[in-house]
């Protein structure tokens, strides 16, 4: 136990302040307050991998590491679409995931938002559309905002989440 406590003490607090949505704006705490005002300190996200290469998933995972500390900002991943405010979707939509993606979207209560993460989700990426993929997420369900990148950095995804909460959810 002493080793665990010692390690925790030496590691210290790694969490960084929230980023601003774009360079011209500041006051990350103000964003956080808005977030809390809208969602009562709980923006609940459901993630669906609709066919990604898993690169975007790695970066979404990274959001939960101590540096980005997503939960500290009042944003968390939930186990059912019925509990979610926002759907985070990655990948070009594979035809094999088309139905599951639609059903997940339909299961979410209103009001609901969809954030497409990664170049594939935004425009189909390197895969495009073929017999096995439908291309961008917006081909299958409504999309409110996109985060570009292959894969987008955790900071870019975080900015995307804050953008949705600031500009769409208010």
């Amino acid at each position, binding site marked *: 136990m002493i080793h665990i406590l010692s390690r925790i003490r030496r590691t210290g607090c790694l969490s960084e302040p929230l980023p601003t949505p774009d360079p011209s704006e500041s006051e990350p705490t103000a964003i956080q307050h808005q977030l809390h005002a809208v969602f009562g300190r709980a923006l609940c996200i459901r993630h669906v991998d609709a066919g990604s290469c898993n690169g975007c998933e*790695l*970066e979404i995972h990274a959001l939960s590491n101590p540096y980005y500390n997503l939960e500290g900002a009042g944003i968390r991943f939930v186990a059912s679409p019925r509990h979610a405010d926002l759907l985070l979707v990655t990948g070009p939509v594979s*035809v094999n995931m088309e139905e599951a993606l639609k059903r997940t979207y339909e299961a979410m209560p209103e009001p609901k938002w969809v954030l497409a993460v990664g170049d594939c989700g935004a425009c189909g990426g390197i*895969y495009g559309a073929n017999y096995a993929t439908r291309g961008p997420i917006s081909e299958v369900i409504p999309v409110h905002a996109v985060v570009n990148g292959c894969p987008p950095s955790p900071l870019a995804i975080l900015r995307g989440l804050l953008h949705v909460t600031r500009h769409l959810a208010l």
Partner: protein
Amino acid sequence: MSSDFLDRDCVPLPSNVAAYCFVADAHHWASAAVALGKAGASLLALWGSDDRDHDRCLRVRATYLLPDRVVLVEHAMPAEGAVYPSLTPCFPVAERLQRAVYDLLGIRAEGGDTRPWLRHGGWPPNVFPLRRDVSAAQTYPLVSAPYPFVSVVGDGVHEVAVGPVHAGVIEPGRFHVSVVGEKVLRLEERLGYTHKGVAKRFEGLAQHDGHRLAARVSGDSTVAFGWAYCAALESLTDTIPSARAAALRALALERERIANHLGDLGALGNDAGFAFGLTQFSGLKEQLLRHNAEVFGQRYLFDLVVPGGVARDLSIQAIATLLGEITEFERAVHELRAIYANHEGLQDRFLGAGRLTPDQARRLGAVGLAARASGIARDLRVDQPREPYDRLEPVLAVRLEGDVAARVQVRFDETLESLRLCKLLLETLPLGVLSIELPAAPAGRLALGVVEGWRGPVMVALETGPQGSIRRCHPHDPSWQNWPLIEVAILGNIVPDFPLINKSFNLSYSGHDG
């Protein structure tokens, strides 16, 4: 047929490893498999191609991995009623591969399971999308049909079905678990949800662009796939990247291994209720990724490996940064390993869970990390060391227990070994050009690129077309071999241990689905 044919009838094949090709009729296709099985080979990959435009034939190809070489066996058959002998009697892992070959090309293996594997209703049953007369732009409406899972009946048996969308940030797949009380009687996986038609997409790309798609077959193995693709293309054009480029590729590959192992070690701690482990290891992983971004301009090293070499060089300052990181990581990993080892609650969950015995692993054809945790001492970096591994003398990590604890230990051993390799690479980084321009590869040639990724051996088979085009490219992820292992390792375990056991293998869905 004895294994003499390996020396007698095989011709060398362009590759970055020792590879040989054997052209077989139906009889020899089957007998070669028997001989190779007896010689201790494991099935590396199985794929088909449509060559009707050349010789009115469809082809299946299988590659086998022996400690000192890769053997490719090729069998052509007339397009009408194309059937070939199944490899499942010798190599059970061939079953899903054969179903996938049928879904994409309409070439049927004799006998065995005929349920679709990659086709979930996204294209009609009489359309075989990898055939050359199917346009790359052609799409079809979804006609979904229920998948006939094998049901288990009996007193008190019930079924738990999960997926394809999981509760968490995970790739999609479906698992049917038949349970009595809390014990698992049977697990059946259904995969293919992220099938993106990668092979068809390759055919629309130029040879010098294909590495970008290869790098996106499975994002967590981007370096391994990128390297395997480039190695195949380079072997066709007799290009040998500079010693510096080879060293930087190896550095990237080992950093990919470290990043994934650190992530898994944290997630495994978390799945066993030890959140401290996740915080610590995910913090270390983030540090590594930030250093990657700082020195290579990319957190996950996408597109760092390019045909002819690498895209970015390391400055003296960057080398110092990475060496400093290694010293810190070695200390942290040793410290955390001791904490894991002395944590009774954690070890109680790890020890004995999800056991895959060495005998089962051999019989099922396990490869890579999971195989090494079940006593199979195979690692391409050690078995067939190519530059720069020939001068690094990597040490193989192997355990006999085959349980979650063994897979954790192999990850710890490999992380520390990879840190040592990175240090050696950075201290002895040779001079040389970053990349060489490749001459155009001749049309109608086939080459293999094989690289030991963090999960296991990654293979890319590349067939060239005229004017720098790709005729056929088949990427293979070791997850194909290792997904069926979980169906065996879970038996007799309790349902709540499934996430932990699944994570201890941490297989790729995208790499498998293609």
